[in-house]
């Protein structure tokens, strides 16, 4: 009998793709794919540590992409959802995908396919939300700074959007939950990690890290937000459905509500 193996990788997407490569290459009977900081040995399986190899990861990436563009984005998006044991589900998905000839594996009556598609959709929604809910504040050293706390790890996904849009200003978007950010220095975007003592979410107290006119514009924006409301159509349920409360603390127009 083929002994099943648990693959342990470093938690990065490339690491995961390498694990998939190794599994296919060595025809491993995979019991599970786990991140190294949360790995658990199974009773009847061995474990093998995977060292991230960009070349191998790239081959898997291209292999999936050649089958279907839709599939590779589904895999990447679903991976970023950080859902527990998503790796094994993705592995099954990739296996099924590779078995098809056409690559058009869109069997929504299959539980794995549907679930991956739904996960990817969730992450896509969060990405779109972050493109909307980032609120830059201008610091004294002329950097537009924003804190976010997204449900999923969407920073790699939104970087292009912001780079294309704010090409002529320096900006920094920092994920407070995952403790890293992306910084654009008018040339390219890089990953940074800061030691933020003071997380700059909405406080009515003014911080002197920000440019003096920053609070004037926030006040204008808050006024604008209030005056566009039509009182006779009030619908709080719809409002919170569109702007869920967990995002409020970083939205300056919600400053008073928090």
């Amino acid at each position, binding site marked *: 009998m083929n002994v099943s193996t648990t693959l342990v990788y470093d938690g990065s997407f490339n690491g995961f793709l390498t694990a998939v490569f190794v599994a296919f290459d060595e025809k491993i009977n995979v019991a599970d794919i786990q991140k190294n900081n949360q790995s658990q040995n199974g009773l009847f399986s061995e474990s093998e540590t995977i060292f991230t190899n960009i070349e191998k990861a790239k081959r898997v990436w291209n292999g999936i992409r050649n089958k279907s563009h839709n599939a590779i984005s589904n895999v990447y998006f679903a991976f970023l959802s950080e859902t527990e044991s998503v790796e094994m589900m993705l592995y099954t998905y990739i296996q099924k995908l590779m078995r098809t000839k056409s690559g058009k594996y869109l*069997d929504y009556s299959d539980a794995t396919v549907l679930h991956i598609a739904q996960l990817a959709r969730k992450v896509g929604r969060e990405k779109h939300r972050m493109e909307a809910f980032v609120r830059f504040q201008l610091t004294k050293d002329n950097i*537009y700074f924003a804190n976010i706390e997204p449900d999923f790890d969407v920073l790699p996904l939104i970087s292009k959007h912001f780079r294309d849009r704010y*090409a002529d200003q320096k900006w920094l978007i920092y994920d407070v939950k995952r403790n890293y950010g992306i910084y654009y220095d008018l040339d390219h975007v890089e990953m940074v990690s800061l030691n933020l003592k003071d997380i700059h979410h909405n406080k009515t107290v003014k911080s002197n890290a920000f440019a003096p006119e920053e609070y004037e514009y926030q006040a204008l924006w808050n006024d604008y937000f209030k*005056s*566009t409301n039509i009182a006779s159509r009030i619908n709080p349920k719809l409002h919170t459905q569109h*702007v869920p409360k967990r995002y409020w603390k970083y939205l300056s127009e919600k400053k008073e509500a928090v």
Partner: protein
Amino acid sequence: MNFDRIREKLNILADAAKYDVSCASSGSNRTNKDKGLGNASKMGICHTYTADGRCVSLLKILLTNHCIFDCAYCVTRKSNDVQRAAFKVQEVVDLTINFYRRNYIEGLFLSSGIFKSPDHTMERLVAVAKKLREEENFNGYIHLKSIPGASDELMYEAGLYADRLSVNIEVPTISGLKLLAPEKKHEDFTKPMEKVKNEIVRYNSERKIIRSTPKYAPAGQSTQMIVGASGESDKDIMYSATYYYKTYNMKRVYYSGYVPVTHDSRLPAIGSQVPMLRENRLYQTDWLLRFYGFSIGEILNNQHPNLDMEVDPKLSWALRNLHYFPVDVNSADKNLLARIPGIGMRSVDKIIKARKFRKLNWDHLKKIGVALNRAQYFMVCDSRLWERRDLDADKIKGMILQNSSGKFRNQYITQLSLFN
């Protein structure tokens, strides 16, 4: 910048602009050029939502609320006693740029009361857009209001800078227009629309030959109609909307439940309820026409001049046309699938892809996201269970209403009260 004065003006002029429903920022493909500021997102982004649940995507303001007209439905009408203000061109530009840089908005929606003359007003609107594009290298979204009666030359120029242009016809019928806005002629509204439409067609055909042809209003035109102000039927509204979609290639027609803003014997009194449910049903109909392959005569006609408020227009069409049903989801074509109540276009798409692999049963359909509470009466699938009873339209409607709850239910259920 004098922030206090700007604040005052913004409050007045944003408040006056809020009755314009359109806040779309989608449909434009403008990209960032020369490392400038902004790019348009094809699908549009709603940056926040007001307490009434409407999206805030653009900085929607009037240039001024001084107006020489006296249209009964309008809050900035000449005879209405409200505070008046006007922005300078540079002030609007600064506000837009600074809001945009902070990721508050997708762009600018600039409308205006008509001061002096339509041309004079339109010229100012164009000046703002021109300044944003040429001096600030701003590539975000700009939606300009075409002022009724503006000249062709100005409308042409507007399209060069704006992503979308719109004229609100507001009153769907010509007789209603005579009653509520006697100073305006129907042609004043349609003339700018016609001009912009022709230019868009011309630019698109030129682009086929010369790829570098500049953009001309890439997000097209839209218009808006007030619902429930002049006593028109749903049929009047939707036939009129269809006319604008067809004749002027409108991207969108918006329906705005009339919010009473002035005392006028021709209009609903202040404090009367905004017809939100009706508005909702009209939008549903609009979607059926644009995406589901329905034609207007099927939904609204002389026998049925108004939409059913209790159930959505698709269900109500299905109940009138039971002879099309039940439909077999495993074999029916796309058009027919789209006509089953409870199945939306996303589900149609998934069903068509999934049924190539296996026959679908109730379980699959539920997981795909079909609203079975409605769909079950109109379809069969790979299961021995289906609705075998010979139900008539009223029975089906009753059962659906009984087993579901709508957010507007309290508005149309008239339960008899025991004690009065």
